[in-house]
């Protein structure tokens, strides 16, 4: 819009464009892009292999990815608030190790699980403390705690794996409610709760405000530090839940559990259209991106594409989808 236009002309122009604009605002939503991609890939995959188009099969294979997706949901909130947490995969490992060590020491499973979740909260609290009290950039802090937590996990269990959990704890991915595996139920429930919390509670809106302009948020009286602390706590807690789920699925725990997972989790959140600068993003986007990842990974596995090629495709997808949404976004703002 050039500066010579009067506000009236501008308003007039905008009014006549209204239907087109509304159509465009739906198109530029990253959620739309990812939904289209899901449909596209699902069609393609079912062409490639007749075994793919089977909901039960997809649900079953999704249990491998659901742990990361669960954390990606929480991470979305953190990123919307303009922070980032790279220590998530290490927190998963450490909390799972706390659980395993407690079980080995003869503690009952519920208490061990509580200890594990508690350790997740403590780790999140340390991240939040360093970010809110010492005002260090969260990317830097969590690169440090990524090493620290992974190292502590190594201290706890050494280089061996701890297994032999009671049989009712192992194999969460084989249990199902109705026909849906339990991990998927947990994931969907978390998505609904977090989605509602983000879109329709005052705290949710405050997270957006902090991400959009932190100084302004402070001036209107939002307890920025308290909310950020809460988000880091949530990130630790979510990672602990995911760590327990993974321990149950694998039936044993090692210190190198989920190594490198942080990048994959960030990738899910980014694919869902969350802006790395904060202030933009939705739980729906991350939710869809998680399913997209499940479909593309199982689709490629079914079509006999090697894991190396899958890495290439994932990287390309992230870049291409970001470019595409960005171009749409810029077009619509002209």
């Amino acid at each position, binding site marked *: 819009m050039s500066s010579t236009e009067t506000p009236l002309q501008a308003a007039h122009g905008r009014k006549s464009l209204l239907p087109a604009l509304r159509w465009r605002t739906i198109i530029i939503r990253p959620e739309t892009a990812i939904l289209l991609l899901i449909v596209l890939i699902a069609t393609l995959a079912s062409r490639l292999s007749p075994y793919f188009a089977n909901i039960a099969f997809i649900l079953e294979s999704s249990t491998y990815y659901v742990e990361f997706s669960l954390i990606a949901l929480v991470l979305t909130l953190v990123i919307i608030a303009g922070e980032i947490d*790279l220590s998530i995969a290490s927190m998963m490992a450490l909390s799972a190790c706390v659980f395993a060590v407690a079980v080995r020491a003869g503690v009952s499973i519920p208490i061990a699980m509580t200890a594990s979740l508690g350790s997740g909260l403590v780790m999140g609290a340390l991240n939040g403390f*360093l970010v809110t*009290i*010492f*005002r*260090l*950039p969260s*990317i*830097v*802090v969590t*690169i*440090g*705690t*990524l*090493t*620290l*937590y*992974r*190292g*502590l996990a*190594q*201290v706890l269990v*050494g*280089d061996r794996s701890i297994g032999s959990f009671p049989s009712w704890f192992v194999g969460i991915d084989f249990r199902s409610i109705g026909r849906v595996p339990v991990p998927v139920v947990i994931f969907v429930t978390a998505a609904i709760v977090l989605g509602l919390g983000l879109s329709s509670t005052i705290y949710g809106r405050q997270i957006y405000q902090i991400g959009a302009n*932190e*100084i302004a948020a*402070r001036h209107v009286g939002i307890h920025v530090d308290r909310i950020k602390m809460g988000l880091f706590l949530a990130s630790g807690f979510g990672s602990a839940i995911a760590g327990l789920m993974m321990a149950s699925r694998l039936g044993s725990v090692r210190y190198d559990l989920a*190594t*490198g997972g942080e*990048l994959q989790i*960030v*990738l899910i959140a*980014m694919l869902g259209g969350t802006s*790395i*600068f904060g202030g933009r993003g939705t739980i729906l986007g991350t939710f869809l991106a998680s399913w997209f990842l499940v479909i593309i990974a199982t689709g490629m596995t079914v079509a006999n594409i*090697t894991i*190396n*090629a*899958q*890495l*290439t*495709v*994932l*990287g*390309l*997808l*992230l*870049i291409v989808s*970001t*470019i595409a949404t*960005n*171009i749409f976004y810029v077009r619509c703002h002209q």
Partner: protein
Amino acid sequence: MRQCLVRCIDDFARNATMNTMIRLAGRVAQVREAGIAMILVLFSLIAGAVEPRFLTGETARVVLLAIPLVLVAAMGQMIVIVARHVDLSMGSILGFSAIVGGLVFRDHPQWPLVIGFLVAILVGAGLGLFNGLIVAIFKLPSIIVTLGTLSLYRGILFTLSGARQIDPNDIPESLIRMAQTSPVGVPWIVIIAFAVALVVHCFLKHTEAGRHIYAVGSNPVAARLRGIRIFPVTILVFTLSGALAGLAGIFYAARFGYVNPGITGVGFEFTVIAAVVVGGVSINGGVGSVLATVLGVVLLGAVTVALPILGTSGFWQNALYGAIILIALVLGRAVRQGGLRGLSATKDAG
């Protein structure tokens, strides 16, 4: 009366010297490198107090041997971070160039070493250029782009190498010797690494392009108004970072004697970024120097070397390493802000 006057003057004089000293100390502390240098000295003293063996020339030699890889890559990462970007794909670029360099050595054992070096650096520069082009053309945040290319390059590298590692007997003897010795006694790769640091220092301090990187990093909008074109600066920083990661890739082959597509360089980006920010380079761009980065790399190198000497068990080393990164970050921040009180006084600065 007279006594009072004398006491007054005395007091004043004492205060004046105190003031100058405080001011001097303040000015020293304001130099970004001071914080990290203090931490380095402090760490060496503590380590030396616990185990006197630490404070010997032998330790210095081992530290020097341990750092060239991270040092070279950290130079590239620092340039990128100063320009207000970040390069997460560095580990994959390192692995990629190491594999390509290794393939050259394996398939053409008669070619001179220089060719392997050149190929690795060029491959790295090419991959970095790709990062830079995407960031600059589409105006995307570099953290997303390089996160994408991190998996992209790793995937291509797997395909390229056929998921097989370059074995020790495929790597020429002369390359491995470069990581062990030279005519001067100090291994070649250490000499090259410090030469690179020196060149980067001169480039950033004394060339127009180098100053432009700082200008763009501290305020891109102001830099554009000043007539600096951002596009070439972005391309330049990513290409340099890629080229230096490529050089680090050859160093990897020289030092470890093998290159594995699934291991080489995985997680390396975090080590490098940690070293750079521990040195006091601001992740928000525009601030940082070669000296600070070198000190950061040396500190983390010294920690790696010290932990086994101090008799810590192998299992504790990673945890202590992470803890020291955090302590160095907090202390560095405290020194720069003039004491711990300064930490809470910046609420509004966000």
